[in-house]
């Protein structure tokens, strides 16, 4: 049976369609549900196997990217989300969805005693929104989305607030040790981006493009693997094939099928 993906839709979300196509290509069924509908119907999230938070500009990014979507999650959907995450089901947040997961405290997760958020996605170091293709190294072997991927992934970024930073830089070692660094930016030749623009496009700490929670079932990332699913999307199709983002979604779908 095909796993069912619940794709959350907040006003201003705009990559829901792209994400839906990516999941369908990976073998899942998708449903895009506006938060307003979920709020009223109190639909049971547990009937889905995967939860996805797409990119866009929820609430126009007013007061900070993902901030008000995070508030929705905290105020209206706290229990549903917590249950889904604790049950070990697959969750992915991309771009604005990642920002919402971080700002609502779901990622990096397990923050010990402290109530204050441990991480954030802030303004790109260059100060501007930027759209360009990047190269990604899937790293985490505990993350059900990135584990076992042997290839690097090429896909675009399109964001103004994708600069990953920690409140306490010492926590970086913890994240690494826990296997929570899921994806890192690379140079085209596969070597470390080493903080160098434009390979690391936004100044993220330690070239981090995506992180997962300690359990590995929740992934958040700034780049858009959902926009590199088909050959025609790849500007380097003549010389660099086999770096599609589909692997990530296939991983998630496979995990959902098995669990």
């Amino acid at each position, binding site marked *: 049976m095909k796993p069912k993906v619940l794709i959350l839709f907040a006003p201003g979300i705009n990559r829901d*369609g792209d994400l839906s*196509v990516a999941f369908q290509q990976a073998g899942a069924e998708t449903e895009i549900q506006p938060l307003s509908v979920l709020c009223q119907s109190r639909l049971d999230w547990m009937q889905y196997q995967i939860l996805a938070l797409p990119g866009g500009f929820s609430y126009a990014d007013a007061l900070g990217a993902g901030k008000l979507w995070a508030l929705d999650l905290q105020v209206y959907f706290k229990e549903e989300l917590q249950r889904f995450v604790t049950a070990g089901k697959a969750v992915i947040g991309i771009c604005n969805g990642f920002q919402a997961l971080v700002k609502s405290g779901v990622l990096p997760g397990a923050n010990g005693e402290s109530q204050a958020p441990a991480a954030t996605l802030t303004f790109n170091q260059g100060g*501007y*929104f930027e759209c360009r293709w990047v190269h990604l190294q899937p790293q985490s072997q505990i993350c059900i989305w990135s584990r076992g991927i042997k290839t690097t992934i090429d896909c675009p970024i399109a964001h103004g607030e994708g600069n990953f930073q920690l409140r306490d830089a010492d926590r970086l070692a913890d994240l690494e040790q826990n296997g929570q660094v899921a994806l890192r930016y690379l140079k085209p030749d596969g070597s470390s981006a080493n903080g160098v623009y434009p390979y690391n496009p936004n100044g993220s700490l330690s070239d981090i493009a995506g992180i997962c929670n300690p359990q590995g079932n929740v992934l958040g990332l700034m780049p858009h693997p959902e926009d590199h699913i088909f050959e025609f*999307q790849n500007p380097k199709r003549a010389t660099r094939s086999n770096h599609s983002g589909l692997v990530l979604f296939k991983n998630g779908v496979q995990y959902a099928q098995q669990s």
Partner: protein
Amino acid sequence: MSIPSTQHVYRFEVQPSYANDPRAQGFLSAARASGLDQIQSIRCLDLYFLRGHLNEDQLKEIAERILYDPVTQQVHWQEYSISTEEVPQESTQEMVIEVTYRPGVTDPVAEQLLRATRMINSFEVDAASSGQRFVVRGEKLTTDLMHQLAKRLFANAVIQYYSLGRITPSFPKETIASGRVERFQLGEMSAEQLLQLSQERRAALNLEEMQAIQGYCQREGRDLSDLEFEMIAQTWSEHCVHKTFKATVQVNNPNPEDRRFPQEYKHLFNQTIRAATRQLKKPWVLSAFRDNAGIIQFGEQHEISFKVETHNHPSAIEPFGGANTGIGGVIRDVIGVSAKPIAATDVLCFGPQDQSVDTLPDGVLHPRRIASGVVSGIQDYGNKMGIPTVNGAIYYDPGYTANPLVFCGCIGLAPRDTHPRDVQPGDYIIVLGGKTGRDGLRGATFSSMTMDAQTGEVSGASVQIGAPIVEKGLVDVLMEARDQQLYHAITDCGAGGLSSAVGEMASECGGEVQLVDVPLKYPGLEPWEIWLSEAQERMVIAVPEQNLDALEEICEKYGVQMTNIGEFNGSGRMRVYYQDQEVLDLDNQFLHHGLPQRKLQATIRMPQHPSEWLNPDANYPSDNPEERLLRLLAHPNITSKESVIRVYDHEVQGGTVVKPLCGVLDDGPADGSVIKPLSVPGEKALVLAAGMNPEYGKQDPYQMTLHAIDEAVRNALCCGADPNQIAILDNFCWGDPTRPETMGDLVQAAQACFDGALHYGTPFISGKDSFNNEYLGSDGLRHAIPPTLLISAMGVIPDWRLALTSDLKQADNLLYLVGYFAPRFGGSHHNLIKGMPVIEEGMPVCHPKTPGVYQQVYQANQAGWIQSAHDLSEGGLAVAAIEMAMGGRLGLRLWLDEVNAYREAFGETGGCILLEVAKQDQVAFETHFGNKSVRLIGKVLSDQFIEIMNGEYTWLKMRMEDLVQAWKHQQIREMQA
């Protein structure tokens, strides 16, 4: 509504907790660029104000949960009172400027803040506003300097106000509407009084038009309400009805030999642009000049629509808001043909970025500020709508300093024949989307007038800030409503607001509207303001009663407001009520057909040098072609636009096959864009491209137009488009058409549109004209733009695998020049480089056999022989070849003519393309073309050098990195966050 005495105002300050805040850095570099060198640093804080009654715990919760990011920011709050206002400091080392929006201007952040505070608790908060605080440090700061800084960088008086020290926040003013309707007794007015009324109400109507209205009043024995008068003025505005193009034109041509133009046009548009489309009779054109956007076939199951609009005057006085609502408006045009917006384009014309502040005409913003604001405005709207901005261009000319041009385009996709256009009597008039405010009054007439130093102040209300998220909701709702066939007709609320949208929909039948039902942003709007307001993000649809519930359900799902404001009927009249009062009652026949046809005079101007004239005495400088090439590459019109392109999301929706940048390092210039929509099965893709050349417009508007059509087609072809399936759009930006010389230029361009469209087989499907792009300086001098015509092309490519890019692919490949190459220096960029010798000459003309060459190019591509393609445009052959080389970071050897290398390298030409071909295809390729229009001109090298040979000698040899550096030196960046 009065404010209870228990209410207080709270002020929150949010500041970054780390150094090197990029936003502050942006302002600092902008301050330096505008000559304010004393400033050493700027800190930038966000301000939020809430009005209500809150205790300390509640303030803390709001601050911590909503207002700041604890990892990167700090927050402080306090209750605001007049006594806490800061007195401007006496210190000359640190001063503070605070900025906030004027009351009534859309403040999307404040709206969200209000919603969020209510969400976390039922807090007693009734209003919110936002602002910014700038802490400026430097040497010998003065209050004068702070005022300059505030005006140049931080606040635009049209939408914002500032103070030195703490600012008093503004909340929407709450006034009570009088409901008063003014009445004008037009019947008895003298000619002078009629003109005075037209001017007082900024109606932009001339005496003949005022007299036509007077005649109507006399016939019906009546006076006119202010609503009626304003509605007629908007409906008859140049913007809405295109009266210049519908005019009869007497043509005065001083050259009796010249038979290109008739002595008289009875209807300029019908005899030129529309006539071309009619004669071409392309079966794949589904709608031309009928709907808000032109529509062509896309495969068997789909149709694609395209519309390009200009938003020039609003962008001149408030660049961010002007461009923002420009893109918002053109997106609604596409929604207005029931299509999903799938791509956006933008072509921008600005004054020189290095213009000195002292030479700016009074009341004109600096071109840098206009450019950065416009780019931010497009970015903000396009990105937030989730529409990829995939194609565009930027031109600079002193003629655009006071009057920038902002062309915004949008492409839509819909299932075939699902766009209904059939208003039925009894259908309800439903308004969807944003609420109505006092913003954007009289935009249609404003855009039809010459601007002057007071325009910013007087027409402030014409400019709005967009709310893209609201418009996104409209798309979400309307695509579902279309699929469920819930409405009979749809129109966007653009210029003229409800008066124009409802008026147009009711023009065939009739309708009645109740104004008190229109949802308002704040109370206090007079009836005429409600009817005319151009508040953004609204659509009007005609919905039969049985579908209301289904529509309501969709609207709730997406949080979109829907309001029933009236009913269509078969009366043949438009009637509007305010409560019980009838405030408007106009006969459709008069309203939509009563405008007298304008009679205009056109004088054809002779170009300074006849086009195509080759100067036999042309003197080519013999020294230093390297420097000339570097300076051409660095010319603002030619230099890389990467810094602008990257702030637009060109990947969203996942369909962008050819991106705006290409090549191994993703920085080569693309000739156009190829889109394969995810929702359309199969391999078919669409191609977008454009052609424009204001330099040629100054020389010869007729030839300029042919070049623009040729360039648009050529660019599309260079992306792989089938030249037999290209539709084009015209966008004219012109001066005052009542001047016979300006009208003469227009006649030349319009006639060339007809001639060119037939010649290339490219029907026009949509267009728009913008006149009076002039600025009357306080010195009495007129600043007019060069005659500017943008031709946008939309083509189809049967298989996306045929898509081409401009970057060189492989060393040892061959480079061919195809087309009839006849370079000239008239209108060339060579002649624009300061300090370089100008070669007096005519401008180039396109060879009549060019369309045949394009067919051959397309066939060669289908055969698989073309590796890359790039057209020759601004800068000529050398620039085009180097752009290809830079894209592929591959060297190139070019063989130019022994005697004419200089002309061949730097002259400009139409109708020519460079094609990269692999050696193994050489014979087949050459045989295919014959030898008339093809010339082997170069070879791709594996090293990083560009070498140009004249005959056997090396005429020029340069390193790739020097060329790249020259080409990429220019950066425009936005200043607004």
